[in-house]
């Protein structure tokens, strides 16, 4: 067991940092004392440092279970960026030869990112068991809770899998968890006594607001008004790729800033370019679906606007948290038109299988062997894990109710006339700063934005690369020695 000075020395040695961020030290210390740990830390608090440092100190294999493929790849990239090459994402997206390559070199990796389904595979499971992982990390651990909005049935397997792995030391990570969900996570993982590490969820430097609008046109006008008053860089979130594209195009044409859309339809090449251009301020504004920002390590984002509100307060607070990581004054605003929640409600409905679809499946599962959409994957998952049809119908009904409930909570937040921060605090059972003039508002005027005294904008790179000729592009690319 390391003492505090030694721990700081290791931090310096492996990461170059002098200080831990809030919550990191407590979590690492708990793990080093061999205690299973549930860490609830806000987005951007540097959750990955906890297992990264533990892996380096213990010099043993760390398995990180993560629900989102894109997120895994981002995490691997950022480990690579910090010089750790022994990190890899073992996912269903891998091509045959890549998969074989990773499997053949499994013992050479220190950080192995996987989705729960991949861990279920017997061959790989046994190999991992042989390697005796030093730490099992459950990222986005709230996905295990049926109460939560991001519930993933595969996560239910993790409790058993952990046991079969020989009950390795376990770190459960999440950014958002109500008290009910916390209990549920620990219960489902079979770790009721896990140590809890928590920091405040409040982000006092972010002003939060809602602007009600009357029509789509009104919304667009408000958006443009806001953008002209706010300081770049910023992110606008959408529920629809199509609308994200349209708004990006319109803003690009009308404003003197560079705007880009970002969503799953972009090629990986283009996604990488958009991220890098945003990081280096060549792009100042991103019109994104929620896929954007997970792996982005940019601390001077001055505003997050929601053109469409998200479907849960948990998602909302995570996305808000991408602004102002440098601690300077930042802004988060939802533009809300009455009945906007219809998009979310219909999404919630259409993404779950109907009773009829469930019935069809149970009658003749083989007929669906080749169907591969999310709905049927869900049904398949339960059916293969011996859940009866009537049980599943009930379970999904409950799930549907809990989703609808979350969306209603979001609407209540939008319509809440008192201090919005206080409502967020109540939702997460967390202490928040008291209301003041830089706290929140239900109407966003230019005066309010002005009174916030936003910091100077990041220096923008407005050179137009298209004016270059290709020889210049090449010579810029390589610092030629002659």
């Amino acid at each position, binding site marked *: 067991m390391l003492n505090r000075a030694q721990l700081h020395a290791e931090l310096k040695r492996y990461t170059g940092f002098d200080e831990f961020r809030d919550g990191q030290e407590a979590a690492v210390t708990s793990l080093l004392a061999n205690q299973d740990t549930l860490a609830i830390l806000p987005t951007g608090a540097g959750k990955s440092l906890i297992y990264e440092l533990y892996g380096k100190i213990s010099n043993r294999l760390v398995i990180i279970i993560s629900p989102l493929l894109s997120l895994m*790849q981002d995490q691997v*990239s*950022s480990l*690579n*960026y*910090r*010089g750790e090459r022994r990190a*890899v994402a073992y996912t269903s997206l*891998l*091509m045959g*030869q*890549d998969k074989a*390559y*990773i499997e053949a070199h499994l013992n050479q990796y220190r950080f192995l990112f996987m989705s729960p389904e991949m861990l279920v595979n017997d061959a790989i499971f046994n190999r991992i068991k042989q390697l005796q992982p030093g730490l099992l990390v459950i990222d986005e651990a709230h996905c295990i809770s049926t109460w939560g909005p991001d519930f993933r049935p595969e996560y239910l397997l993790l409790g058993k899998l952990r046991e079969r792995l020989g009950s390795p030391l376990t770190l459960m990570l999440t950014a958002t968890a109500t008290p009910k969900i916390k209990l549920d996570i620990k219960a489902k993982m079979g770790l009721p006594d896990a140590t809890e590490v928590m920091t405040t969820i409040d982000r006092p430097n972010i002003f939060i607001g809602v602007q009600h609008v009357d029509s789509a046109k009104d919304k667009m006008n408000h958006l443009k008004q806001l953008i002209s008053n706010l300081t770049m860089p910023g992110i606008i979130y959408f529920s629809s790729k199509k609308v994200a594209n349209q708004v990006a195009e319109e803003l*690009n044409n009308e404003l003197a800033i560079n705007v*880009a*859309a970002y969503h799953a339809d*972009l*090629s*990986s*090449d*283009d*996604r*990488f*370019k*958009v991220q*890098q*251009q945003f990081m*280096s301020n*060549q792009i100042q504004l991103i019109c994104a679906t929620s896929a954007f920002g997970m792996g982005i390590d940019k601390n001077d984002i001055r505003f997050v606007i929601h053109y469409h509100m998200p479907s849960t307060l948990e998602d909302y607070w995570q996305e808000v948290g991408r602004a102002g990581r440098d601690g300077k004054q930042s802004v988060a605003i939802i533009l809300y038109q009455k009945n906007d929640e219809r998009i979310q409600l219909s999404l919630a409905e259409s993404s779950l299988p109907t009773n009829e679809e469930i019935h069809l499946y149970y009658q003749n599962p083989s007929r669906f062997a080749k169907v591969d959409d999310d709905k049927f994957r869900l049904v398949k998952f339960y059916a293969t894990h011996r859940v009866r049809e009537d049980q599943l119908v009930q379970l999904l009904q409950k799930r549907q109710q809990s989703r609808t409930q979350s969306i209603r909570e979001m609407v209540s937040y939008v319509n809440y006339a008192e201090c919005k921060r206080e409502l967020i605090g109540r939702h997460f059972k967390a202490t928040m700063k008291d209301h003041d003039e830089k706290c929140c508002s239900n109407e966003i005027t230019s005066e309010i934005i002005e009174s916030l005294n936003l910091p100077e904008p990041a220096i923008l790179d407005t050179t137009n*690369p*298209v004016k*270059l*000729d*290709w*020889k210049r*592009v*090449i*010579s*810029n*690319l*390589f*610092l*030629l*020695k*002659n």
Partner: protein
Amino acid sequence: MDEFRLLSLLSDKQPRRKRVVENILKGRRTVSTLFWGMRYGILDWLGYEKKLQRDTYDSVFDQLIQEQLVEAVDQQFRLTEFGTARLNQLAKTHYQPQNLAVGQFYDSQLFQERLLLIIQVVSEYSFDNRQYYPQLASQANLQFAREWFRWFKINGTVDLFAKEIQDLLQNLNDDRLALLVAFRFMGHGTMGLTTQQLAVEYNSDVDQIAAIQTDVMLGFIPRIKENPESLLSPLIAGIDSSRVSASATQTLAEVWQHHSFKQISQQRRLKESTVKEHILEAAILLPIDEIPYDALISQSLRKQLASILSGQEIDEWQFDQLTAKLPDLDFFYFRLYQILRSKEHVK
């Protein structure tokens, strides 16, 4: 998939099957698709738009018919005079891929990923930077880039590398194209431009831009091959992909060793019809001298077929018409003879 692409895949003389053109673009490798793809001379487009949707294809097709650019001839389709004129006009402003054939013999995805990755690696190296986000690439290619880079540090210099890239672009003899591709490259402080950003600048669309970039980069492969000293040579090692499936290649090797269809089908537990499909696939995709036609189809059968079919266009031969005179004829020999004659004809 747009008007120009579809028009360019149809002919004003030869009526063509709507689904064959669609399946060629999608990369469906049934013998019938491959055979007609060969007859239409569009095999190099095989798999050019793997994600093409039936709805999209049909709606473009219907539009062409409606505008009378294309007309139906016995359930097949042909360009009208009007359609030919439109095609020629569109060809002036549309990029026509130059390196489709290269794409049939190499894994272009793998090649592009490798090239983009090592450009980034050398760029960062030239700025003495070791901390950066590598571009997204497969594990195998990341590993390739590491090994290549070790080799490069001993055998090359940044100047030589940059010169090679420059030469590849110079060789295009088209500054606009060169710029379009140069913007795909990323490196230290150079973020490139996305296809969307380029589409706005060039007043084009995203798919068109991506297609041009891919085609130009494919053209690099033969250039690299010509130069054994190239620092890029390792990039093309192991990326050649045979047009013929592995299983069909094996069947063909066994036929060359005088194994009978029966032997092959028993040994490999394949249906005899599958073995024959392998032969037809190989015959369509490979040059004439790589297929043992003499062992496969006797001179006497060839003579019989020639006399019955004399005076008819190859496209119009009908199997039914033969079975009246040769009731035991297997469709396999009919099709194989058709392929043989097509290839002799081209020669």
